[in-house]
């Protein structure tokens, strides 16, 4: 037989779930956001996994820099399976018209690609397209290059000094994702042609990658370990299981960010859950008291309502899961062909389970406490309607606290970066607490101020101060939504300002690479000629450039795996370095002293603090650098903070010139230039320095600005979900008081109040709630955004006043409109029936 509590609960539910619409919406919204974020991320992960070999271009990819694989290494590679080789370098492309721009030039061997397919516009095979015709090598290029240089298929152009014919438009390469960001349009030619073009000379910044398709059945890990032994540690090896680690990290972070917004909506919506359960139990007070008068114990009554709330929570979570599972399917079907990452959209139970867990824990955290009232509601409330259950420390409160702790623990456990998750959760909890206190404070102040007010203002203040004040119920939820939205808006606008306004002022406009060391004087002259002005330290800086790796610290070999993941970048791959004698302007020295300009003693090194952090390197420590195939033992003389976005010697590692004496280092230069000077110098260098690459920082910044703009809408849209939760709570607060408002409006009308006065009172009340919540939300958003911009992104803080004003206005306006709707609803009823219902 059905337990008594279940039987009574099912009877109680016959009344329908009308009063629980906000409860269901609050839960469903947060769960849907988390489920959608998780499902989308899983779709991308599965998509990447399903095409792992295509993304890597084989089962294994082995990369080296500044040289090609030697015959012994090739033999070892080819013993493992089928191999294709590719080289990559930057080059300047030049059209017959003289128009030039930077490209990413790849040379590929005959076997390329081993996995997947190169897609050319209009079809065709890559190897056919890049084969030489009439002595000129073929190339396939991306459309932006054709647009920029005004070329078409069949036209000839130069890559550095290498003549190439455009034989096709490159749409997609199978291994593009695993190679990451490109500084210019991609061009693919035959590896032999690229070699002939002089791009693979020793010391030039190129790299070669061998992709291996293992023999069928060959174990991946064993083959990887074998090749690591055969080829040595200098080779970077990736396998198909880790084809695009950067993309995986990005997906993880994006999932967490979007999931976090869902979680924040659950917390903001939690007030809606709390409010709905409290309002429901308040409405059921006569039933609860009657049950007790009939002999029911508190626990039985509590269980009757616990079962109801539990069932409704399951319903809310189920609605959220349905939306969260369906949304990526629908969205995926619409945008599948334009996605940059392969995705397999389907219903994945894992992310849905996680979202369900979050939803149920949040429902428990926010509804168990008010459920305690069901247990404690005295039966005497049948005689005295003012009596209500009191919240005392009991099993319900303890369970609610445990559920909240479980929610936080689950959020941390599922986060890719635990510390960041803890900071974010503590931030949300503290913000929520502050907003809650502010709501109570605002109600108290309204209570004190109403004595001095008259008319509609007095009515509005009295309602704000009253026991059902929206300042206490809705303003924390709205404030949290505004805080999240505010943080996102402020971070985005500050970063956008950095990219669009600050960086163009402080960063160089142009970077020149591969300047021949023996023609630096002529090069400087060519730049000065093109600029039409003399070069000074303020607008032009040229330094030697080489890449190298730190192999030993304090005599100990560097083991990258033992270094914290976020600091490993400086030790597991080559980093850029220079050899500079005189102390640069604004070197950012934190410790130690720069050497004298003519220093010729044992090698010294100036190290960026972020590089030093990974191995806790201090001034005076000995480190060993592997540069151009030789080891240099150097003592750390300087620790400095390099301003990578500024105009200066922005090298993470600088050695004394004597350390690399004899090496004919290529040079790099940076320059500040107007748009006109930029065009002139790119054109000018084409004649005398065709192999010097010119990177337009302005172009990269514009591309970044464009990317920011495109992302901004999506991320703000996601953050708006949390604001929507705040609105739901406001709607819940309005709905819960609708009946009382009708009676209040009827009484006010009887007392002679005009409609305008009643409308004004309600708009004032809710507008004030919006304004208070908005202002507090913006302040909290600022507190969250500032450290992210300044400490995490190292960008200059700028305040988006327009965004702040818009948020404040929107919060007050939306809340005010809510008040207006509440007033219209109340005024739409005739006073007499409303008062009779009393």
């Amino acid at each position: 037989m059905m337990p008594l509590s279940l039987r009574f609960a099912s009877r109680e539910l016959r009344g329908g779930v009308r009063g629980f619409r906000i409860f269901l919406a609050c839960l469903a919204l947060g769960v849907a956001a988390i489920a959608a974020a998780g499902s989308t991320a899983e779709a991308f992960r599965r998509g990447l996994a399903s095409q792992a070999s295509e993304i890597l271009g084989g089962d294994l990819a082995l990369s080296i820099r500044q040289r090609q694989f030697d015959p012994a290494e090739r033999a070892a590679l080819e013993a493992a399976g089928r191999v294709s080789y590719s080289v990559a370098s930057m080059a300047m492309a030049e059209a017959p018209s003289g128009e030039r721009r930077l490209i990413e030039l790849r040379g590929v061997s005959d076997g390329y690609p081993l996995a997947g397919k190169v897609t050319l516009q209009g079809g065709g095979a890559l190897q056919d397209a890049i084969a030489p015709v009439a002595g000129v090598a073929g190339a396939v290029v991306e459309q932006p290059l054709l647009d920029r240089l005004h070329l078409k298929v069949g036209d000839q152009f130069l890559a550095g000094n290498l003549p190439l014919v455009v034989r096709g438009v490159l749409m997609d390469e199978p291994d593009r994702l695993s190679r990451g960001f490109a500084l210019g349009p991609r061009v693919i030619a035959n590896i032999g042609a690229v070699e002939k073009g002089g791009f693979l000379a020793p010391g030039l910044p190129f790299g070669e990658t061998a992709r291996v398709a293992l023999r069928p059945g060959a174990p991946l890990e064993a083959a990887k370990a074998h090749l690591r032994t055969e080829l040595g540690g200098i080779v970077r090896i990736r396998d198909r299981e880790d084809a695009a680690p950067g993309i995986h990290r990005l997906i993880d972070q994006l999932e967490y960010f979007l999931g976090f917004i869902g979680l924040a909506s659950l917390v903001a919506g939690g007030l809606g859950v709390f409010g709905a359960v409290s309002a429901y139990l308040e409405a059921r007070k006569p039933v609860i008291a009657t049950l007790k008068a009939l002999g029911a114990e508190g626990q039985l009554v509590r269980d009757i309502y616990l079962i109801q709330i539990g069932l409704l929570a399951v319903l809310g979570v189920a609605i959220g899961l349905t939306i969260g599972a369906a949304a990526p399917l629908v969205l995926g079907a619409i945008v599948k062909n334009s996605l940059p990452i392969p995705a397999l959209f389907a219903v994945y139970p894992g992310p849905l389970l996680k979202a369900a867990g979050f939803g149920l824990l949040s429902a428990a955290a926010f509804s168990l406490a008010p459920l305690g009232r069901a247990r404690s509601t005295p039966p005497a409330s049948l005689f005295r309607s003012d009596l209500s259950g009191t919240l005392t420390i009991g099993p319900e409160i303890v369970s609610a606290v445990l559920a909240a702790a479980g929610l936080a623990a689950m959020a941390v456990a599922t986060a890719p970066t635990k510390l960041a998750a803890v900071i974010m959760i503590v931030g949300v909890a503290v913000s929520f607490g502050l907003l809650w206190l502010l709501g109570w404070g605002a109600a108290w102040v309204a209570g004190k101020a109403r004595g001095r007010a008259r008319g509609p203002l007095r009515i509005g203040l009295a309602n704000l101060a009253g026991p059902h004040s929206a300042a206490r119920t809705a303003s924390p939820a709205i404030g949290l939504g505004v805080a999240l939205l505010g943080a996102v808006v402020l971070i985005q606008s500050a970063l956008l300002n950095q990219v669009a306004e600050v960086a163009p002022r402080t960063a160089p406009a142009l970077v020149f690479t591969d300047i021949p060391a023996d023609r630096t004087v002529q090069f400087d002259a060519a730049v000065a000629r093109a600029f039409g002005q003399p070069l000074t330290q303020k607008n032009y800086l040229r330094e030697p450039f080489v890449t190298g790796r730190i192999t030993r610290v304090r005599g100990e070999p560097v083991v990258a795996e033992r270094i914290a993941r976020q600091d490993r970048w400086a030790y597991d791959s080559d980093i850029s370095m220079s050899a500079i004698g005189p102390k640069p302007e604004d070197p950012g020295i934190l410790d130690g002293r720069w050497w004298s300009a003519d220093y010729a003693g044992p090698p010294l090194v100036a190290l960026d603090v972020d590089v030093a952090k990974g191995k806790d390197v201090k001034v005076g420590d000995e480190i060993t650098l592997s540069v151009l195939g030789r080891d240099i033992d150097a003592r750390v003389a300087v620790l400095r903070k390099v301003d990578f976005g500024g105009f200066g010697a922005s090298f993470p590692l600088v050695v004394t010139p004597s350390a690399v004496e004899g090496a004919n280092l290529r040079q790099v230069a940076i320059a500040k230039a107007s748009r006109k000077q930029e065009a002139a110098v790119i054109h000018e260098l084409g004649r005398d320095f065709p192999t010097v690459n010119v990177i337009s920082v302005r172009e990269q910044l514009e591309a970044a600005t464009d990317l920011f703009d495109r992302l901004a809408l999506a991320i703000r849209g996601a953050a708006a979900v949390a604001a929507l939760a705040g609105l739901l709570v406001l709607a819940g607060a309005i709905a819960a008081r609708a009946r009382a408002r009708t009676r209040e409006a009827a009484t006010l009308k009887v007392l002679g109040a005009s409609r305008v006065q009643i409308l004004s009172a309600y708009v004032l009340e809710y507008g004030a709630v919006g304004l208070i919540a908005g202002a507090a939300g913006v302040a909290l958003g600022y507190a969250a955004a500032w450290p992210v911009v300044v400490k995490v992104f190292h960008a200059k803080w700028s305040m988006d006043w327009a965004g702040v004003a818009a948020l404040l206005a929107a919060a007050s306006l939306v809340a005010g409109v809510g008040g207006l709707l509440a007033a219209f609803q109340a005024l739409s009823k005739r006073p007499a029936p409303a008062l009779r219902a009393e």
Partner: protein
Amino acid sequence: MTEAAADPLVLEDVALTLPSAAGPVEILRGLNVQVASGERVALVGPSGSGKSSLIAVAAGLERPTGGRVLLFGQDLAGVDEDGRARLRRGRVSLVFQSFHLLPNMTAEENVAAPLEIARTPGATETAKAWLDRVGLSARGRHYPHQLSGGEQQRVALARALASRPALLFADEPTGNLDAANATHVAELMFDLVAETGAALVLVTHDESLARRADRTVRLRDGRVAQESSTAA
């Protein structure tokens, strides 16, 4: 005194003071009332004299701020709310002026509810039988909002008496009914109380109804102003 032989209700010097925004309000001031088994006592008095509060205190729904309440010989002072709920089960029932039927339960379920709470076997059958007794066997599947006021109060009576309590509190049971329904409900209540042998504590403004009780206790300002035997 053993419980079996004890009077169903004894109030000794009972006081009830409630807090209010304007300061404490004395509702009951040293009341002494005793109700014997099967006795029918009417409580009358003006509004605010403490009649309903007396029922709330006597039924264990409210704790007095002074004095003792003995239900079937047991002092309620040391019994917590759940204990008092258990004590009421099957022995104490209440009928209210505004019926207080459970709105989402049918008439039959309402009558069965206290029996189910007390885990009494055959609750549904007993409920059906009692609905028949109050002339509502055809309305068993109707919800309270589908019943007239008089019908609702008859369901409430059936619910109160289905467990055959030894003590029935009725707080203005006819106060919300028209004259015809009031007479019908009153007749039914006195008949069924007589039949079950339950003691009755009846709060009413209606002197004619009060006269049907064995004894009338008049309250004024929270005190017993007068007691008189009314039974013929």
